[in-house]
C-alpha cells in the first residue's frame, strides 16, 4: 500500500547524482542552473519521503522553504546570466576565465 521510504531515498540519490554529474560535465550556464534545480528537487524528494515515513509534517515545511530559496536563486542566477551575456556575449563557463589564475 504505502511506498517504503527506501524507494524515495534511492530515487533521491539517483536524481541528485544525475544533477551533480550534469553540473560537472556541462559548460552551458543555463543547463548548469537547471541541474542545480534538479539537485534541489532530489533533496526535496528525500524530505517528503521522510515526512511520509515519520508521519511528521515538518519535512513538508522544509520543502516549502527550499522551494522559496530555489526560486530566489534562479531569479538571481538568471539575472547574472543576462549580465554576463551583455558583457561577454557568451554563456559558456569555459570562456569565463577572468578570475582564473
Amino acid at each position, binding site marked *: 500500500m504505502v511506498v517504503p521510504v527506501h524507494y524515495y531515498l534511492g530515487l533521491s540519490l539517483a536524481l*541528485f547524482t544525475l*544533477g551533480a554529474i550534469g553540473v560537472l560535465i556541462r559548460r552551458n550556464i*543555463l543547463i548548469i542552473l537547471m*541541474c542545480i534545480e534538479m539537485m534541489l528537487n532530489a533533496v526535496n524528494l528525500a524530505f517528503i519521503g521522510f515526512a511520509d515515513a515519520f508521519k511528521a509534517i515538518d519535512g513538508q515545511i522544509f520543502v516549502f522553504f527550499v522551494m*522559496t530559496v530555489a*526560486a530566489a536563486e534562479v531569479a538571481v542566477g538568471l539575472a547574472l546570466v543576462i549580465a554576463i551575456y*551583455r558583457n561577454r556575449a*557568451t554563456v559558456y563557463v569555459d570562456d569565463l576565465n577572468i578570475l582564473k589564475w
Partner: protein
Amino acid sequence: MEYLFLILGAVALISGALVVFQTHPLRSALWLIVNFFTVAGLYLLAHAEFIAAIQIIVYAGAIMVLFLFVIMLLNLRQPEEELARPRLGLKIAGVTVALFSAVLIGLGFAKVKIRPVTEVPLGLGNTESVARLLFTDYLLPFEVTSVLLLVAIVGSVVLAKARLR
C-alpha cells in the same frame, strides 16, 4: 502504489538524464518540466498534496517560464554546444560524487531506524495542517523568507538592468 512509484521514478530518471545530455538548452528545459511533473506525482504518492500543487505552480510554472524566457531572450547564435570532452578528471569527479552520496545514504540506513508505517495518517499533507504549522512554529523563518525574496527581487533587477562596465 509501488507500481505507480516505479513508473513515475523511471520517467523522472529518464527525463533527468535527458536534461543532462541534451545539446540545446531549450530541450533541456522542456525535459526538466517533465521531471518536475513526475516529482509532483511522487509528492502526491507521499500524501503531500499541498507541496505537489506548489511544485507544479512554482517550479513547473514560474521557474521554468523564467528559464525559457531567458533562453529565448539570449537568442544564442553560436553553434550548439557539444558535451565536454570526456576528460578523465571529470569522470573521476562524477563517480566520486556518486559513491560519496551512496555511502552517506548507506550510513543513514544503518543509523536511522525507520518505524513501519501502518496506516495513512489523517490530515497529513493537506493545506490546513501545513498552514497551521507554518504560521505557528515556523512563523519566524516564514517572515525571514519574505525578506529573502525581497532581496532577491531587488538584486535581480539591479543585476539585469545595470550595465556592468
